[in-house]
């Protein structure tokens, strides 16, 4: 493996890991507030299709990204209405949202299949301008990639260093106690879900508008579910999510590298690598779960009347 191909793998790991980091951060927020969202897959698909459609129509990728984020937030409100206000089962509501996303995104995206869009500019990583062009070419990233790490830090700060984050985590640990302490668990959960949906939308925007620059049905390929797994891997901590996202991104990149280098392995088996790797990582991590999961994760808060 030459330096060039090593850089190539690293670069594509960063590209495919970024969207996963955003959606994982979103799920960390949701689960810290006590809600498991299996609908992220569908929410990402709808956001990706809306973002792509807006970018394609207006020619402005920034507008597309904003639309995508807003769509993600709105979709999560639909899910939130069921699980927070109507006290519906979270897993079933999540899967229903996933189905809704499958269908709605296919409907929205249909006229844009195979469309071309103008994407975000790619800027060279600062300080690397001295490298020969064949190397520096690998380090031209877009704005959303540069914002990914600050975003993870921001979410960490929000969750662990602000009053708002303390309230949110309190609701995730025990909603009744939080209510007794004068918080409004339902409102906090709605806010958490909206933020979580916006991050999922941002992830989807990076996938459809920036990274692949296309729209096709089911293009997220399980990233919504892998995000749920990575939340466990990162022990519900935003900064550890970075490692998880890079690991998964690395698996995707390694798979692309093997295919490109002509190794005689079926591409179908290589497709399975990221999922198998995620499971292996969870196994290696196993057993610690109960010490770090929010205590009332998945439980319905019936109110204290």
């Amino acid at each position: 493996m030459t330096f060039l191909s090593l850089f190539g793998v690293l670069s594509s790991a960063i590209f495919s890991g970024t969207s996963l980091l955003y959606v994982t951060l979103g799920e960390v927020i949701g689960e810290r507030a006590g809600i498991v969202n299996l609908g992220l897959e569908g929410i990402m698909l709808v956001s990706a299709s809306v973002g792509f459609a807006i970018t394609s129509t207006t020619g402005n990728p920034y507008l597309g990204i904003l639309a995508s984020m807003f769509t993600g937030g709105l979709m999560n409100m639909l899910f939130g209405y069921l699980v927070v206000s109507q006290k519906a089962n979270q897993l079933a509501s999540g899967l229903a949202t996933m189905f809704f996303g499958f269908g709605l995104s296919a409907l929205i995206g249909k006229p844009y299949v195979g469309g071309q869009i103008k994407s975000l500019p790619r800027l060279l990583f600062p300080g690397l301008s001295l490298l020969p062009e064949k190397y520096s070419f690998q380090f031209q990233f877009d704005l959303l990639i540069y914002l990914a790490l600050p975003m993870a830090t921001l979410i960490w700060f929000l969750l662990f260093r602000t009053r708002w984050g303390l309230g949110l985590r309190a609701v995730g640990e025990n909603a009744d106690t939080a209510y007794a302490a004068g918080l409004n668990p339902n409102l906090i959960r709605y806010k958490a879900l909206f933020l979580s949906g916006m991050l999922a939308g941002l992830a989807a925007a990076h996938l459809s508008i920036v990274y692949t620059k296309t729209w096709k049905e089911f293009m997220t390929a399980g990233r919504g579910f892998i995000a749920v797994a990575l939340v466990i891997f990162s022990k519900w901590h935003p900064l550890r999510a970075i490692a998880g996202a890079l690991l998964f991104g690395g698996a995707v990149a390694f798979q692309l590298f093997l295919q490109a280098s002509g190794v005689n392995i079926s591409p179908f088996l290589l497709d399975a690598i990221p999922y198998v790797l995620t499971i292996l990582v969870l196994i290696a991590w196993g057993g610690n779960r109960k010490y770090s999961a929010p205590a009332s994760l998945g439980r319905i808060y019936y109110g204290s009347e």
Partner: protein
Amino acid sequence: MANITINFLRTRFIQLNIVRITVKYVTVIVVAFFLFGLILRFAGKDPIVAIKETIIYTLGTTSGFSEVIVKMIPLILTAVAVALPARVGLINVGAEGQLYMGAWLATWGALTFNQLPGYLLLSIMILLGSIGGAGWAFIPVFLRARGLVNETITTLLLNYVAPTIVAFFVYGSWRSQENAMYPQTVDLVPAARLPSFWGTRIHLGLFIGIIVLIIYWYVMKYTKWGFEMRAIGGNPQASKQNGIPLILYLIVVMCVGGAIAGLAGMSEISGIHGRLRPNFSPGFGYMGFLISWLSNGNPIGIFLMSFVVAMITSGGDILQINQGLPFAVVNILLAIALYTVLYQPSFWERKKA
């Protein structure tokens, strides 16, 4: 036999007001179609025509109605595959992957033992289909039983792995040379096909599904196993202290669930397709999860809900053909039907926690 039937209708397990339930199912369908019509309107299609065509096709024509029944077969099986582990508190979201592995192993049997007579070959395929699904379910439940990983997320992730294994074989060594356009195996020999009836595509799988449903009801209701499973579902620690082999139950029940999902895959390949194709399932496993949850694991509920979901899925075919909409659009209708049910927490008198 008559005695069992009467007991069946009297049992608390299904003691529900039939009229009220029917009204609610009809409400679900009407609301779902109404909201779906609104969405179609926004998409620039004529919702009245689209919905009329769907209903006329699924309920008004023999061929359409038989297609609904055909789709019910895998749905009943995958729903039981989810409902059974749910009784001991296991969340099996992996019926989709188990279905693929069942289909895969059953196809291997059909291709390998193609000289055998029908009854023997079909029995082998049923066995292999069950083993395939059970094996795939064993991975997550083993990890769960060892206290390593929660089964919800592993079953979900394995759903993405199983189709790649099927694709590996269908694009690889099993690929038929006759049709270069479509990746698929050679046609299965007639002995490997489940017989179909009444000149439709309804096949023996329907009876397999109904028998599985009845056995499920009987085991849960009348056997010591069913009693102990409910005890585990209610309070795992207490049942463990009462000498119920908890780990053994978890593993066996999950594997039986996986085997039933594998049967669904086998019956699709043997009864409908006649060959293995990649991505042959339009998400039967996920639909089964929702059916199981919405019917609360109730056998009659599973049967009725399978019918509703099968009708919606068949509607998707007609929307695709007549309206030029992507097949995936049918998921909207499915989701709205589910939202309608989830929206009313009192829909099923759920036991208060």
